[in-house]
C-alpha cells in the first residue's frame, strides 16, 4: 500500500506520524510505504505568530526541521506537488518527479490573500506570516495613541484570532500605560461580534468591560490608505490611525490550479474526510470545505480519524472511524487569563469563565505542540 501525504503542516505531519506507528510492522515487511511531499524543510508553529506580533516570542522559536519531527520510516521530500493526476492515481512534483499512490492525503493548508481587498496589504498590519508579525510588532511599538481599528476578512484561519488579538491589544497598551490614549474599535462581517454564537455572547460583555467599541455587519470593501479610512461593503466607514486586519484566506494555489475545489477548498465528506467522489483520497485541515474552524486542532482531530481509517484499511480492509467535527480552541482573554471553546457538528461550545490556569495550559501547549505534532499527545 503506497500512502502519499501531500503537505507537511500540522495535519499532514500528525497523520503521517500516527500512521507510521500504526503500520510499523507493515512498513518493515515492505507491505506499506509512507511518503510525504512538502513545500518546505521547516515546520512552523503558526499560533505562535500572534505572540511574535506582541514581542512575546521570537520568530526562531516557532520553527523546527520538518525531518526531525517525522518518524524514521517516513520518506520525506521537499518537492511540492504541481499537478494532481487523480485518474492515474499519481502526482507530479515541482522537480518533475511522478509519485504514484494507492491512498492520497491532501493537507496543503491555506494562504492569506489580503490583495483581494484594495489597500489592505499597504494599509493594515497583520500577523499571519513571520514577516508581517514582526512588522506589526514594530508598528505597535511606535504607536503612541489614537484610533485603532480591527477588521476581519472572510473566510479566515483561526476563528478566535479576531477576539484574541483585540484582548492582546488591550493588554499591550495597558502595560505600556497608554490604553487611555487608544480608542479601539472592532469590526465583524456578520450581524454579531463572532461567528460562533456562544463566543459572541461571551465576548460582548468582555469588550464592554475593557472599553472596546464594536460594529457588526462590516465587510471590508477597501482601505483608503492616504486618508486612513476603512470602508465596508455595507456603506459605512471608520477612520483609523492604526489598522489591524485578519486577512481573508484561500486554499493553496495548487488546489485551485488543478480545479480540485473552488477557492482552494476541496469538497470533503464531513464524516469520512474523503474527497467527494474519490474514496482513496483523504482531505485534512484547512484544505477541506467542511463547516468547521480552520484551526490546528481541527486538523489534529481529523488526522487521528484518517490515520485510524487508513491503518484499518491496510489491516482489515475497511475504515473504522468517523469524524464528528470536533474542534478545541484556546481563547486568550487578556490579564493572563484564558478559556477555551470545544465543539463539534452537534454541540455548540459552552464557554467557562477565563482563568489563569487555562492561560498557563495555553502557554504550556505552545511547547507541547512539538510532542503533539509527532503524534504523541
Amino acid at each position: 500500500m503506497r500512502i502519499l501525504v501531500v503537505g507537511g503542516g500540522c495535519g499532514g505531519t500528525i497523520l503521517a506520524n500516527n500512521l507510521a506507528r500504526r503500520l510499523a510492522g507493515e512498513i518493515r515487511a515492505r507491505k506499506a510505504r509512507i511518503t510525504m511531499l512538502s513545500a518546505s524543510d521547516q515546520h512552523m508553529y503558526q499560533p505562535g505568530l500572534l505572540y511574535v506580533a506582541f514581542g512575546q516570542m521570537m520568530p526562531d522559536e516557532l520553527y523546527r526541521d520538518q525531518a526531525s519531527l517525522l518518524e524514521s520510516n517516513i520518506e520525506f521530500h521537499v518537492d511540492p506537488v504541481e499537478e494532481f493526476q487523480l485518474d492515474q492515481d499519481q502526482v507530479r512534483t515541482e522537480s518533475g518527479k511522478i509519485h504514484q499512490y494507492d491512498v492520497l492525503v491532501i493537507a496543503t493548508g491555506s494562504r492569506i490573500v489580503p490583495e483581494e481587498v484594495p489597500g489592505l496589504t499597504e494599509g493594515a498590519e497583520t500577523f499571519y506570516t513571520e514577516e508581517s508579525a514582526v512588522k506589526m510588532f514594530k508598528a505597535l511599538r511606535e504607536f503612541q495613541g489614537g484610533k485603532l481599528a480591527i477588521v476581519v476578512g472572510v473566510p479566515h484561519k483561526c476563528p478566535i484570532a479576531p477576539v484574541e488579538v483585540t484582548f492582546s491589544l488591550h493588554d499591550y497598551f495597558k502595560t505600556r500605560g497608554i490604553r487611555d490614549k487608544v480608542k479601539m474599535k472592532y469590526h465583524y462581517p456578520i450581524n454579531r461580534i463572532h461567528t460562533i454564537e456562544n463566543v459572541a455572547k461571551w465576548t460582548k460583555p468582555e469588550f464592554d468591560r475593557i472599553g472596546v467599541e464594536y460594529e457588526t455587519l462590516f465587510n471590508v470593501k477597501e482601505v483608503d490608505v492616504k486618508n486612513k479610512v476603512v470602508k465596508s461593503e455595507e456603506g459605512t466607514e471608520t477612520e483609523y490611525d492604526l489598522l489591524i486586519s485578519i486577512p481573508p484566506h484561500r486554499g493553496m494555489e495548487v488546489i485551485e490550479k488543478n480545479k480540485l475545489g473552488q477557492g482552494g477548498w476541496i469538497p470533503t465528506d464531513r464524516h469520512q474526510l474523503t474527497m467527494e467522489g474519490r474514496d482513496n483520497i483523504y482531505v485534512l485541515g484547512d484544505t477541506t470545505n467542511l463547516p468547521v474552524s480552520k484551526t490546528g486542532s481541527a486538523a489534529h482531530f481529523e488526522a487521528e480519524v484518517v490515520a485510524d481509517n487508513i491503518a484499518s484499511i491496510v489491516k482489515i480492509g475497511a475504515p473504522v472511524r468517523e469524524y464528528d467535527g470536533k474542534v478545541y480552541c484556546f481563547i486568550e482573554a487578556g490579564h493572563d487569563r484564558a478559556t477555551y471553546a470545544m465543539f463539534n457538528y452537534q454541540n455548540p461550545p459552552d464557554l467557562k469563565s477565563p482563568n489563569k490556569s487555562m492561560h498557563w495550559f495555553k502557554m504550556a501547549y505552545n511547547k507541547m505542540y512539538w510532542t503533539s505534532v509527532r503524534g504523541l499527545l
Partner: protein
Amino acid sequence: MTTQTETPLAATVADRDDIAHDLEQLSELATLVSSARDAMSDELVTRVASALSEGITLLDRLTRNEGLMRLLQVLDRPESQHLLIGLSEALGAMSRDIASAPPAKGGIVGILRLAREPGTQEGLRSISLLGQYWSESMRELHRRGSG
C-alpha cells in the same frame, strides 16, 4: 445519667477539634497552592512544558527502540552482568599491568615468549569463541530483519 450526658458533649468537642484541624490543614494547602500560583510565571510554565515535551519524545523513542529493548533484556540476565563485571575487572587489571610493566622490547622472541603464556592462549581462545558466537548472533539478527 451523668455519664450519658457527658459522652455526647465530649464527642462534640472532639469533633470540633477534628474539624478545626482539618480546616487548618485545608487552609495550609490553599496557602501553598496560592503561593505556587503566585510564584509561577509564563516563562516558568513554558520551560517546564518544553522539558516535559522533549522528555516525552525521548521516552517514546527509547521505548519503541527494539534494539535497545533487546539489549536491556540481555543485560537483565545474571550471566550478562557477570560478564560485564568480569570484563570491567579485566580491563582494570590490564590497565594496571601495562602501567607497571616495562615497555616491550619487540622482536620475534618477545612474541614467542608471549605466546607461551597460558593467559595469552586462553585470551586467543576467548577471542576465537567470541568471533564464532558473534557471527552466529549477527546472522540471526539479519535473518529476523532487524540487523
